[in-house]
């Protein structure tokens, strides 16, 4: 555990979360959410929870992104609000 590294990763996580919420294009939001999941996975692994990091990487960054892209391709790509 290195506190500085933790804080840098946490900063990336927060930036990705805010960007995923504020971007208009839904496909971009999904890709940023994938990056968010990957930084979250790095944070879990760095804090010693390797099993949780594994789950986060495979489920959220892997399958979750694909499922969101499939859902976006079935609906409108732009967000109204």
């Amino acid at each position: 555990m290195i506190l500085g590294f933790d804080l840098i990763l946490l900063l990336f996580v927060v930036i990705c979360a805010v960007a995923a919420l504020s971007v208009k294009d839904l496909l971009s939001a999904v890709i940023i959410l994938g990056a968010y999941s990957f930084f979250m996975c790095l944070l879990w692994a760095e804090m010693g929870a390797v099993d949780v990091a594994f789950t986060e990487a495979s489920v959220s960054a892997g399958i979750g992104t694909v499922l969101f892209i499939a859902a976006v391709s079935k609906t409108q790509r732009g967000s109204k609000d």
Partner: protein
Amino acid sequence: MTRVTDDIIIRAVARILIPFIQLYALYVIMHGHHSPGGGFQGGVIMGASFILYLLTHGLEEAKTRMSEIRAGVFSSFGLLVYSGIGLLCLILGSNYLDYGKLSTVLKVIPAQARSLGILGVEIGVGIAVMAVMFSIFFDISTGGILPEDEEDLGARDG
């Protein structure tokens, strides 16, 4: 999303990559009880390999490997493996999923029986999660309407 692509690069890369993804998924499942990973993560990775096949080779070809019906059968079978091992422990006179008593059936010492029991449960969980992940993606990408259903609707209209 599930159209057939005729790009040779995508098809070739998927064909080379899918066996390695599946091998890695099997490794994660088999080593789940003494290293990070396990039935759920391995099952998700295995499901991802089938989703990659569906994305690159289209619905028609993917149905020869893994169809909607087959995914349902696999998910039920995985649950059957999981609950079957648990009930076997219950029948042998211990608690649900208490693998120590399996030593009388497997003819090994209780510590080894616990290891084998949890491996069996992880295999069951892996099969179920693989089938359910494929099924969720299948339903989202097709919208629940299969091509033969559309043909049937068209024939009925015409």
